[in-house]
């Protein structure tokens, strides 16, 4: 019994210590950020590997999510004779919730895990140490550009996801189920508010981008430098950032609707 308590306490202390370290790490990253702008090529390279390479999965998922929304929305709306409003249902669900959240979850799995594994392996093979000994700060050379690339790419990916999703809903609603094309678009145009919906959705995208990338680079940098350590860190990145995204989504939504 006492042992179990002690064990729990130990685990909790360890968790708080990690939280503290990750906060300090975040500060260090922020301090190192200005140096990235002196080396735009590094940043562009990372945006390519973190953002551009995630585009395909984001677009494919976006189109399927949009198509499912089109189907589900149509079935429900048709019961009330409101099938014409399908455009709003699809667009609002995507802009407010599904766009940022699903993109963030996919981003954590696709780009976050890759970032953790890459940085973790660099640590395990002494590449980070080697840089330090060459008087190159890994924080500035490795971590900061990757962090910035992730935080920058996420809102763009969210936007892409939403756009493709709306098109997917259009394809199902207008193309397959025979809703009027003009109604689909005009409903979206009149009912989706720029500030309440799009702006807030993008804020979520930015916040999720920062959080997921932060977790990914921290887990990589903090990894136990063995193959097992890297694999555990990669798992932790995906699990922790998914949980963080879902929990933060609740908090942000609450704040945005003023509850």
């Amino acid at each position: 019994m006492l042992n179990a308590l002690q064990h729990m306490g130990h685990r909790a202390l360890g968790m708080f210590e990690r939280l503290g370290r990750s906060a300090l790490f975040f500060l260090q990253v922020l301090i190192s950020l200005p140096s990235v702008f002196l080396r735009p090529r590094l940043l562009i390279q990372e945006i390519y590997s973190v953002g551009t390479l995630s585009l395909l999965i984001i677009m494919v998922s976006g189109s399927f999510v949009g198509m499912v929304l089109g189907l589900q929305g149509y079935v429900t709306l048709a019961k009330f004779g409101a099938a014409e409003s399908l455009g709003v249902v699809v667009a609002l669900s995507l802009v407010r919730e599904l766009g940022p959240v699903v993109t963030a979850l996919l981003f954590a799995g696709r780009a976050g895990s890759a970032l953790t594994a890459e940085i973790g392996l660099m640590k395990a093979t002494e590449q980070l140490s080697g840089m330090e000994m060459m008087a190159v700060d890994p924080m500035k050379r490795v971590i900061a550009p990757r962090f910035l690339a992730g935080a920058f790419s996420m809102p763009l990916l969210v936007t892409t996801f939403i756009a493709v999703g709306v098109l997917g809903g259009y394809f199902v609603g207008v193309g397959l189920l025979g809703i009027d094309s003009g109604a689909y678009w005009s409903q979206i145009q009149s009912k989706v508010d720029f500030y309440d919906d799009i702006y807030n959705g993008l804020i979520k995208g930015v916040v999720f981008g920062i959080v997921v990338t932060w977790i990914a680079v921290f887990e990589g940098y903090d990894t136990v430098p063995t193959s097992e350590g890297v694999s555990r860190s990669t798992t932790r990145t995906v699990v922790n950032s998914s949980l963080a995204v879902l929990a933060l989504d609740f908090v942000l939504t609450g704040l945005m609707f003023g509850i």
Partner: protein
Amino acid sequence: MGPSGTGKTTLLKLIGGQLRPEKGVIRVDGLDVHRLSRKELYALRKRMGMLFQTGALLTDLSVFENVAFPYREHTKLPENMIRDLVLMKLEAVGLRTARNLMPSELSGGMARRVALARAMALDPMMIMYDEPFTGLDPITLGHIVDLIRRLNDALGLTSILVSHDVEETLSIADFAYVIAEGKVADSGTPKTLAESSNTWVRQFLEGQTDKAEQLSERAKDYLDDLMGEKRA
């Protein structure tokens, strides 16, 4: 020199300022490494090269780019000059023709030579070698031993070499320390070390196994161990 696990690599990391000592002072070229500001430490590191046991090459860059890395990070030299400098460093380690290979395509010995070329890039005053002889075939080993000595003499370097390969190390060392359990057991030129008064040091240098009496003493523990008796 010293057996595995006595803190040889730790010592190099202390000198490079990657670890902090609990007590004591480490001076490099008159500077107390652990009292320097971050900026001063980085300036000092530009004057030190370090060769890691694994090479620590950047795996996403080619051999050429790995050696060019310090120039690109620390200088604003034009591209054609970087090219010349990199080729000179690679030629010095005999790998000019391997410049387009990726680190994953190199053998252990080649990777170490590339890392050596990179460590020399900024013309440091000293190079630290962490176990440069481990895991090499005899021919490559001979090359590396020879290379370290020649570079040291040709470039007027200070070389600090950490190793447990007695024969190779003593063949090129001017002065050696033998470390055991975190303490210096003996020091001197290779010649004086061979006549060390410390029996353990001679045993280490000559590669003898533990004496028979020590073995039998351990055997008793072993028996207890096997019988599952708990000792207080």
